[in-house]
């Protein structure tokens, strides 16, 4: 079966660029796939690797496609190709030793008579030492070697690394595109697919992994928090602190929950400004309409602003106290003056 770059859902710009470069036989040896988490950068890197390693000559009309049938394609698909190296780790950081080992492997001649590909997944996890160790190879890789770095935070890579790579931007996929993918690959009913697509914020990778009932439950939880915390004399500090406790009971889920809250508030902004058709949480439309009416645009925007600061803090690589940050958010939602000022980021 044909495997091609242009099959990447919603990444037509990147696909066009790569196919063009492949067609002209001018593919840069160091590529940086940059874009949000879950939009298909790593998948695209594997597809490109398969195309580079495919043993059959590509059709001139279809330069971005691998045959999907030859020995090399089968091995790539099964992660068993000797000349495809993937640098990935479960840890937070990619360390210099792993990078050095990967570079050493690139200096051994190919096993399958062709090219070699090194994919570094989430390259921004490399610490500065590891990135520096990679510089020489990025600039002048050993013969027939392609390096593909993927990153959702390309700006936290060293400038010296970025300047040696050709950056290929990957964009969030449209809700429409995502809905189609979900209906096609997961067989979800259209309405449900649309909700999941909208809540996954343009990341098919995230959407495909989604456990739908869990997602809806999580959404209901954050919606509940939003509903409980109204500014006014009735709102109590205790209630806000309780909500914060609930949101942080699983630290790994916090970022995802805040994302859902962000979509929830975005819907209110849309409704308050009269753009009804675009909302994501269609199943809760009556609630949202009521909230938008009673709160008004100013209040909804105030809430959204407090949330955005919190999301930015949570996304920092440093270990901040998540409970403390979330308490600040809940207090802000409840209209309570907070004991310490949330630092202004911009």
């Amino acid at each position, binding site marked *: 079966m044909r495997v091609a770059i242009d099959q990447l859902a919603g990444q037509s710009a990147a696909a066009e660029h790569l196919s063009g470069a492949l067609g002209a036989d001018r593919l840069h040896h160091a590529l940086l796939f940059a874009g949000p988490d879950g939009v298909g950068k790593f998948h695209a890197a594997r597809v490109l690797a398969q195309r580079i390693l495919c043993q059959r000559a590509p059709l001139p009309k279809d330069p971005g496609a691998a045959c999907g049938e030859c*020995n090399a394609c*089968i*091995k790539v698909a*099964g*992660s*068993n*190709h*000797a000349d495809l*190296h*993937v640098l990935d780790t479960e840890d937070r950081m990619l360390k210099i030793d792993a990078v*050095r080992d990967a570079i*050493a*492997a*690139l*200096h*051994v*001649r*190919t*096993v*399958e*008579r062709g090219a070699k590909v090194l994919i570094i997944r989430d390259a921004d996890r490399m610490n500065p030492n590891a990135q520096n160790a990679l510089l*020489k190879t990025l600039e002048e890789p*050993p*013969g027939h070697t392609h390096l593909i770095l993927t990153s959702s935070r390309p700006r936290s890579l060293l400038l010296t690394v970025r300047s040696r790579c050709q950056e290929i931007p990957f964009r969030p996929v449209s809700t429409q595109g995502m809905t189609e993918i979900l209906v096609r690959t997961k067989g979800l009913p259209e309405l449900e697919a649309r909700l999941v697509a909208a809540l996954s914020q343009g990341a098919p990778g995230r959407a495909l992994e989604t456990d739908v009932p869990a997602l809806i439950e999580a959404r209901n939880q954050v919606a509940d928090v939003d509903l409980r915390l109204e500014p006014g004399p009735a709102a109590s500090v205790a209630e806000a602190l309780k909500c914060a406790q609930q949101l942080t009971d699983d630290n790994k889920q916090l970022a995802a929950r805040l994302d859902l809250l962000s979509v929830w508030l975005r819907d209110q902004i849309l409704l308050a400004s009269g753009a009804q058709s675009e909302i994501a949480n269609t199943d809760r439309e009556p609630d949202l309409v009521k909230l938008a009416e009673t709160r008004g645009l100013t209040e909804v925007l105030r809430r959204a602003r407090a949330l955005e600061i919190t999301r930015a803090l949570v996304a920092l690589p440093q270990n901040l106290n998540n409970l403390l940050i979330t308490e600040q958010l809940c207090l802000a939602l409840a209209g309570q003056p907070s004991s310490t000022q949330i630092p202004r980021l911009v």
Partner: protein
Amino acid sequence: MELKIAVPELSKALQRVQGIVEKKTTMPILANVAIETSGKKAISVSATNLEIGLTGTYPAEVKSEGAITLSGKALYDIVRSLPGDTLSLTQEANHWVSLQCGKVSYRIVGMPAENFPSLPRFDEVEFFKIDPAVFRTMIEKTLYSVSTDETRYNLTGVYCEPIDKNSGLRMVSTDGHRLSVIETKMAKAPVMKKGVIVPRKGVSELRRLLEDSKGEAKLGFVENSAVFETDGLTLTMQLLEGQFPDYNQVIPSNSSKKAVLDRKLLLDALKRTSLLSPDKAQGVRLELSNGALALSANNPDLGEAREEIEAEYQGEALKIGFNFRYLIDVLTVLSEDKVELHLNDPLSPGVIEGVGTPGYRAIIMPMRL
């Protein structure tokens, strides 16, 4: 695939590849050994870690042909513990394999052989015969000076190239401070257009194989790998990318001072003197004068050592410093009774050769002491 094989044969086959089977790896198939029938009377057992691969051929009774890969460690553990003499191995659907030995039976799951990294096609290799003893000497005399600096990849292997007009084989290695070069004339010389770099791991594995080698040995080079064959075993070594530096530039073409020394005497004297050499620099001073060589070292924390040995030398006196480890390494791999030391001045490299057996030269950069 269906076959019968003697348990000790399979056990030997699996034991040989245990060192190559990868324990933890990103490529699951590398933890497997490939078993393939070759004709009706033999099977081949292969393992690879992408840098080196080892294939052995073993007698077996093949009922139907085929190929499969199975976990190297699990299969070895099973075969080692079997009570009987003969094992029958039958491939079933979905890459399952059943093993039967007397009343013991196992079913283990494998992976398709097509996923196994391609080993070079041995029938494409143009082999040349090589004397195992000679080859082993060549390896021993070059392996010690291979660089361990992982950032200079092109130095982390032994460079092999044909001598003029393919009349023999030359092997060179260097780590930037020392270099060793050995060449051997051969009746049938290697067929290669230009030199290749064989990585250190491959060369060490080769040496291990040569230690046990009894019969003939053959060496050959294909596109990206070197292939060595002996006693039914085939070792493939993936070559390194890159250009080996032009080593001819650093070999001094002539020397103004030549001393002949007793190798053993010099080696022992070096070991004694080096006890008081500085911990980090590891330097010893050599003072050459008429008929004698004096070795001295001094460690500011400990004290001084000095020893004088006889030397066949006439000429100007010369003082020069060397890293004693580099000298000891060279003197250890040499087997001749007498060695020649060629020097020019305190800042030019020294050359050591064995007296009576040309073809090997060790070049060592001096130290400022």
